[in-house]
């Protein structure tokens, strides 16, 4: 889940203060009030995505400069809210520094909210898609396992066995400290709400004692003003005697661990630590390695303690996802369980671990104790749910889902999480194993093995499983050959995840025909029919397991090549899984999928030509539609004409004006030259200071030009001029003889005025070189530019 981080740089303007109040209402947003650059630098470095608001230009410049590495990427957005608009230069400079947005104070808050939403929404969608893709791949992997009919047949037997074991364990364990662990976890679970924030402030103080942890947690709640949980928590703590139970449970847990588990697990730990490497569901290899190295010291308790899971969740900044909103809501969530829980669990044991990281965390056996105390929380379901377990494994799964459905974010958005929940419910709680301490140990080992199996795509499966099984068998006092049965059993015990996922896929395929949304409830229902199957321990030998493992690897590879597996029919999948995988081979569907993403229209067309109907018409149509949508948004590429509008002549003319004693005739000549050059036109200029008097020619451009198209016209111009002169002098507006520009010789009259006084005109003739109004305007411009010179003559300067 993408965190919606909003940084508000103080001092806040009135608008930003209002905006802050609005933002505080939105629980999806995490607000950071920053007052100094140093503070900002610390925060911006660790936030994945953020929007920074500031209302001071100087401060904005300062923080943009200081955090240049962080503010210029697409993960952050910087908005400056100002009362007055910035001048373009400043705006440009700020934009270069990384400022994305400048807003005026008068803009309503909702616009800001929309902008915030539009920034984070695509990120969230992208993350969701990535998660879905990952789940698809995982589901494809496990599909192979589902196809094993043997396992399906053996399910009932295994389940029965397991329930029996749980019943035995219930009697043995009774109301041990595990239940209290859950109490403690509940409280810590609360702390998760703001875990990321807490971590930032507390600097991951894993080693702090429990008391300190509580303090930290409290601080967090206090600082989170808008959190409804803040109000709910004290009441809840009081009700459930949170502090007391927390410390008690921890003591008990530690005691149990020291007395029983530790010696045994220390023996097993090297193997398990290897496995924890293998199960690298997330990209936290470094962290896990570190944890693994601590494993020996910490013992196996961590391995099976879901508290560790929570600690891991904290490390992943995701804690609040599974957070119940209020105490009342928590009660609602848990009411379904209370009947089944032992009294010692009471109202605190009802929380079911809900977190998408759970399955990963289940194998983080080696987080140190303090860290676990501080941050873990998810030990509820297996501690008190013995009866539940007895009655049905499904109940466990469903209860997890119920809890998860209470969490809006997790329940709605993340399918992977859902699968993980099942996994967690089934395989992560060895402490509660009905097999007792020693069997618990074997179960733990089994889990390790099963994880290893899940992670079979990784190279670390090279682990010597046989040797490990022998070791376990020895500790369990099993006959020598019995160790061979452990692995298959444990593998199958872990396999529910695979099977559940596989069943999900199948259900989804079935549902695809109905085009229905695959809701969480639907999934949980459908899972019932495909409940995880425990393999027949006697029925599968190690060699079979290895064989199966190889098969999984092979088919997994094949399915990986087919990311669209999810869209295939079951028959398609089965057919494909039966085919041998050839490296480098890319299925048609995979290709289609690729095309869908990049919209390679050309490639699609080529393939259509080559293969004709071999491609799915629906997919082609989909691609085409996507392409069309994309094309509709494609900006129109426009090249602008390199047109100067004749302005270069004006610039040159202008330069003449600055020359000392420039003759006016030269200016007229230049204007004439411009017309000749552009239009092969001739021009003559007349002045007339008195309306009654005959116009006086001050420049004759017709007579002297005999080289252009108007040569013959020029020779007769004098007669023509005599006839037309009076008429020309009566023209008071620029006038083209033919405004459609069709005449072979088009005449243009341009009269000059100064202070509403008529001062003369120029007449020009164009040998059909002006063909439109654009050209006509250019010609008018050339005629117009002599006005100053005419003025000069009118004032008595003479044409010289």
């Amino acid at each position, binding site marked *: 889940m993408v965190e919606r981080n909003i940084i508000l740089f103080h001092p806040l303007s009135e608008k930003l203060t209002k905006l802050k109040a609005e933002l505080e209402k939105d629980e999806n947003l995490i607000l950071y009030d920053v007052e100094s650059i140093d503070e900002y630098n610390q925060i911006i470095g660790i936030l994945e995505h953020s929007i920074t608001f500031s209302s001071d230009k100087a401060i904005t410049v300062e923080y943009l400069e200081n955090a240049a590495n962080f503010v210029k990427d697409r993960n952050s957005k910087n908005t400056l809210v100002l009362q007055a608009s910035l*001048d373009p230069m400043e705006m440009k400079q700020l934009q270069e520094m990384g400022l994305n947005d400048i807003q005026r104070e008068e803009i309503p808050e909702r616009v800001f909210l929309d902008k915030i939403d539009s920034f984070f929404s695509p990120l969230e969608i992208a993350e969701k898609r990535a998660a879905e893709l990952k789940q698809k791949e995982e589901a494809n992997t496990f599909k192979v396992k589902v196809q094993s009919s043997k396992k399906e047949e053996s399910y009932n037997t295994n389940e029965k066995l397991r329930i029996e074991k749980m019943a035995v364990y219930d009697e043995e364990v009774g109301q041990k400290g595990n239940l209290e662990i859950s109490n403690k976890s509940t409280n810590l679970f609360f702390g998760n709400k703001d875990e990321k924030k807490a971590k930032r402030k507390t600097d991951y103080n894993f080693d702090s004692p429990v008391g300190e942890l509580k303090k930290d947690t409290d601080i967090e709640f206090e600082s989170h003003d808008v959190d409804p949980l803040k109000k709910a928590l004290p009441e809840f703590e009081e009700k459930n005697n949170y502090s007391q139970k927390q410390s008690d449970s921890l003591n008990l847990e530690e005691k149990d661990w020291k007395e029983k588990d530790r010696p045994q697990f220390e023996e097993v730990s090297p193997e398990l630590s290897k496995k924890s490497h293998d199960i690298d569901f997330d990209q936290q290899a470094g962290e896990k390695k570190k944890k693994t190295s601590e494993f020996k010291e910490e013992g196996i308790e961590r391995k099976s303690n879901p508290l560790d899971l929570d600690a891991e969740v904290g490390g992943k900044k995701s804690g609040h996802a599974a957070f119940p909103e209020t105490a009342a809501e928590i009660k609602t969530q848990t009411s379904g369980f209370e009947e089944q829980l032992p009294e010692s669990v009471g109202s605190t044991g009802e929380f079911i671990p809900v977190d998408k990281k759970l399955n990963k965390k289940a194998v983080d056996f080696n987080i140190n104790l303090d860290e676990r105390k501080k941050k873990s929380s998810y030990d509820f379901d297996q501690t008190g749910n013995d009866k539940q377990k007895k009655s049905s494994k499904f109940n466990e799964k469903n209860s997890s889902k119920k809890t998860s459905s209470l969490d809006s974010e997790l329940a709605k958005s993340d399918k992977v999480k859902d699968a993980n929940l099942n996994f967690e419910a089934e395989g992560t709680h060895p402490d509660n194993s009905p097999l007792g301490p020693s069997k618990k140990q074997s179960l733990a080992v089994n889990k390790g093995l099963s994880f290893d199996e899940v992670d079979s795509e990784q190279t670390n499966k090279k682990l010597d499983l046989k040797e490990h099984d022998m070791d376990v068998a020895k500790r369990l006092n099993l006959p020598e050959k019995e160790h061979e049965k452990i692995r298959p059993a444990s593998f199958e015990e872990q396999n529910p995840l695979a099977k559940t996922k596989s069943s999900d896929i199948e259900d989804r395929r079935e549902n695809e025909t109905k085009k229905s949304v695959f809701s969480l409830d639907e999934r949980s229902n459908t899972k019932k029919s495909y409940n995880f199957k425990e393999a027949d321990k006697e029925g599968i030998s190690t060699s079979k397991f290895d064989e199966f493992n190889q098969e999984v690897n092979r088919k997994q590879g094949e399915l990986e090549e087919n990311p669209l597996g999810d869209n295939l029919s079951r028959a398609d999948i089965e057919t494909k899984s039966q085919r041998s995988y050839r490296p480098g081979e890319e299925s048609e569907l995979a290709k289609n999928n690729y095309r869908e993403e990049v919209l390679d229209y050309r490639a699609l067309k080529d393939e259509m030509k080559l293969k004709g109907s071999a491609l799915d018409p629906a997919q082609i149509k989909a691609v085409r539609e996507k392409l069309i949508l994309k094309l*509709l948004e494609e900006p129109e590429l426009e090249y*602008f004409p390199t047109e*100067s509008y004749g*302005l270069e002549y*004006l610039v040159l003319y*202008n330069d003449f004006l600055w020359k000392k004693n*420039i003759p*006016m005739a030269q200016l007229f000549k230049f204007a004439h030259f411009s017309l000749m050059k552009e239009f092969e036109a001739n021009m003559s200029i007349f002045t007339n200071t008195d309306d009654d008097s005959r116009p006086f020619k001050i420049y004759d451009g017709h007579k002297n030009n005999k080289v252009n198209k108007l040569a013959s016209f020029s020779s007769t111009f004098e007669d023509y001029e005599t006839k037309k002169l009076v008429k020309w002098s009566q023209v008071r507006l620029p006038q083209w003889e033919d405004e459609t520009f069709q005449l072979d010789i088009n005449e243009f009259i341009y009269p000059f005025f100064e202070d509403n006084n008529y001062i003369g005109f120029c007449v020009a003739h164009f040998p059909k070189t002006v063909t439109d109004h654009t050209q006509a305007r250019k010609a008018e411009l050339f005629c117009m530019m002599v*006005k100053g010179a005419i003025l000069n003559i009118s004032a008595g300067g003479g044409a010289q």
Partner: protein
Amino acid sequence: MITFYKVVSEVFEVEKIYSFTIFLYDKERENRVVALKDGEPLENDTIEQWKSMEEKGAYLQVFNEDKDELLLQANIDETYLNELNSEILNSMKEQEYRNKKYGPLREQSFVLKDELAVASETNDFKNLMNRAHLEIMCFPLYLNDLVSTTTELVDKLFIRDILPVRIATFAYFLAKHNKIEDELTLSQIIVSALLKDIGLTMISPAVLSEYKELTNRDLYLKHPMLSIFVLSKTGKDFDKHVKRFILEHHEQYDGSGFPREKRDKYIDMPSYIINLSDQILSYSSGLVTGKEAKLTDVIRYFYKRSPVDGINSSFPDHLLESLGSLLKSEVS
């Protein structure tokens, strides 16, 4: 690479089914819609609508990947298609030609300070003008119509060593020196620097005979507005920034300028740059005093805020400070 080929409705036939999608682009609204989906028959009503839209200035388009199908299925050959798209195809060719011609030259080293020193010593602006010319000729033609106009003006004018071109050249480099790098703003500055005085064509040259008296002549004080007026006669609606820079090219930081006696931050930075360039080059060319002066000396006058007659050094400090780094002997 052209994305869409412009086509006309006449090339399509009623009742026919085309295997490509036809789009309709409304230039005014900058909006593209699907005119006809591939595989759907073209109906008479549709084609009538197209014609009606074409009359309003919209035009049909076909995606470039569908060119082959278009030529195969519609009544159009390649020549006609190119003719319909000649404007954009020619512009693309022109751009390609310019990039090829001026692009490599642009990579050659150029030290403004050194070139100014040379120009100052020799009174030869050729190198500076050439450099500005080739840099501007690489401006993209698809950016803005003003940018295209600027490249054309520069191509025609920067071969002539005249005062307006010198001023525009200096303004261009001074703007770049002050971190104004985007092509549009630079274009605005160049065009404004070139055209700022075209309004003088409306004034009797006699008014301009005495430079020192100019500020006492009402007509001269109006010339920025007259320049805008002349500019409007081109029929082209020039960028509002260009108009602003022209109007402000005689305004001074302390309000001592004209025509509106604007001051301080109310004057845009490019306007200051144009004004400063104008004053430096005018003074250097001898227009102010009747006596030519070394360019670097004049720059130094402004940099030092020397109380030289005929110079108004009322500019923003940072602009004058930036002149220091243009002078070889000064430490910026």
